[in-house]
């Protein structure tokens, strides 16, 4: 953040200049992360048993849209389009979606701890998955059993939280406590299922819980893309109101905002977004909690910028984590959820320690 000397002689034009610079910094951050995400995607696709250069990867991708213009290596189209790119796209979409959901939840609940994990959404999805894998029961049969279960159970905690807000006029603090209570309940039931399960099924559940991008099919990607395309504009449209709600419910009301309705609306959209993503990827921790915080540390708390910037940060971070997950003990691919927490945790701690001013 840009600090102006607290002398009383600051002129109007100086303030204007400082403010422009302040906005410019945010736009720079966003542009930087757009480029970084594109670069990381290129690197990610280029890695694997069959190596390509990053430029060859871009050429192969662009060849789809402008045929016969680029030099494309043999086999590259098949490897890129059929094997590698879907997990990278999934990484971008999931990282962006989880980060936005986290930023929105922290904003409407005015609480730095709000995330899909603390609100019980992840625990719900975990129980849904455990039921599908261990007990084989669920709402939808066949191939969609696991995904359907995870999706439905992920939404249960958010419905309860929204109902509390709607009918019992719950405060943000109460909503978070309710989320934590539900996390315990769902975890306990999951543990019970784990305890009585066969070794093979238990491993499947545990691996699912760790989160992975490798399961992504093109169909999953279409579903998530459509969800993001609907949810993100709805959430960005609300970012002014989110800013104002950061000043407290009373101030927000006095500025004409229907605080309860906004809170319920954003909570529903963000939960839906999270549920759609984690039912396909499993639990990818940390991004929803930390991407918004790191973004705010860099560019301040204006949600009109925080929401898109955390999305980009989340996307870049998840793609980078996936590169590490694939390469660190190649050819074994470790679940990406492990990497996000292992790398993200220390990074976040470092930023908290290095930060001079009090944050949040």
């Amino acid at each position: 953040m840009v600090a102006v000397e607290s002398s009383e002689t600051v002129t109007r034009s100086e303030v204007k200049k400082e403010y422009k610079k302040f906005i410019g910094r945010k736009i720079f951050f966003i542009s930087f992360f757009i480029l970084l995400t594109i670069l990381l995607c290129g690197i990610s696709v280029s890695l694997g048993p069959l190596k390509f250069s990053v430029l060859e990867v871009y050429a192969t991708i662009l060849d789809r849209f402008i045929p016969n213009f680029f030099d494309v290596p043999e086999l590259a189209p098949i490897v890129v389009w059929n094997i590698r790119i879907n997990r990278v796209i999934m990484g971008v979409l999931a990282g962006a979606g989880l980060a936005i959901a986290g930023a929105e939840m922290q904003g409407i609940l005015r609480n730095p701890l709000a995330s899909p994990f603390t609100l019980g959404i992840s625990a719900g999805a975990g129980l849904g998955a455990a039921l599908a894998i261990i007990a084989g029961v669920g709402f939808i049969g066949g191939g969609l059993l696991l995904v359907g279960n995870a999706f439905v159970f992920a939404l249960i905690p958010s419905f309860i939280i929204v109902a509390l807000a709607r009918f019992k006029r719950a405060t943000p603090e109460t909503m978070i406590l309710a989320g934590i209570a539900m996390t315990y309940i769902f975890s306990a039931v999951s543990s019970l299922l784990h305890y009585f399960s066969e070794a093979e099924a238990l491993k499947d559940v545990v691996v699912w819980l760790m989160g992975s991008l490798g399961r992504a099919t093109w169909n999953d990607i279409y579903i998530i893309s459509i969800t993001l395309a609907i949810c993100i504009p709805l959430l960005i449209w609300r970012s002014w109101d989110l800013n104002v709600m950061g000043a407290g419910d009373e101030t927000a009301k006095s500025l004409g905002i229907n605080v309860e309705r906004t809170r319920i609306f954003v909570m529903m959209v963000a939960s839906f977004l999270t549920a759609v993503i984690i039912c396909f990827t499993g639990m990818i921790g940390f991004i929803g909690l930390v991407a918004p915080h790191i973004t705010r540390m860099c560019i301040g708390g204006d949600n009109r910028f925080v929401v898109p910037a955390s999305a980009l940060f989340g996307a870049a971070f998840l793609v980078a984590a996936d590169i590490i997950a694939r390469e660190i003990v190649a050819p074994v691919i470790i679940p990406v959820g492990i990497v996000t927490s292992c790398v993200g945790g220390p990074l976040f701690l470092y930023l908290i320690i290095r930060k001079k001013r009090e944050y949040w």
Partner: protein
Amino acid sequence: MKLKVKNVEFGYQSVPVLKDVCFELAQSEVLGIVGPNGAGKSTLIRCIDRILKPQKGSILLDEREIKEMRGMELAKKLGYIPQSGHQSFPATVFDVVLMGRRPHIGWRSNEKDNEKVLDVLQMLKIEYLAMRDINEISGGQQQKVFIARALVQEPDVLLLDEPTSNLDIKHQLDVMDAIKKLVREKEISAIMAIHDLNLGSRYSDRIIMLNGGTIVSAGNPSSVLNAENIRQVYGVEAFVRNELGCPYIVPVSPISPNGVEAVMDGGVSRQMRDAGKSV
């Protein structure tokens, strides 16, 4: 009349806080609301701004029922200044003030809004704070920022909840002078809940004294702030002088419930009353 409050009743759960409150506010008038803790001052302010919804009665702004107005429409007419505020995420003073433009804009602000923010910052002489974080400035500075935020709303009526609590005497006068000046220059009106009787006396055109949720006295400061009212409402023995053309209250001692002065302070209060007579 700018604002009319008629027979307003409000209660939290079943505990009544406001009972049958009626008053009117004229154009370009500063109305002070005084009363002991729990008298309903803040509740009344919040009812007027529709942060709380009264169970009974009506509040008319420019002859229109506020219940029937849309949120954004009301926000263009009423500016609320909270007692203190905590901003959750980091935010610069400029951005906090810009929030006040919310009722006038969609999701994007433009150059015109920025100019308005600068105008108000300049008027309150706090443009040097523009890029500082709101949570890192002093209480007096914050109070001015909240006033600035309410002003860029361009409201007709300012509602202030204890604008001088937590401020030192210099900042108290500073903030009150700013409010008085705004009311005169922009011909807006203001309602402020205020604890400090002397500030209330000096800066209000008219005063309402609340006790237990009802108005016990209303009128100009010298008619409301007399020793009898203060004894009745606050249970405090005080004498009232005339300083700088308005009543100045010197509290002497609390009265015990049976109406007799507390014995402990008896000596002091007698002394002070004698001093008061000699003035």
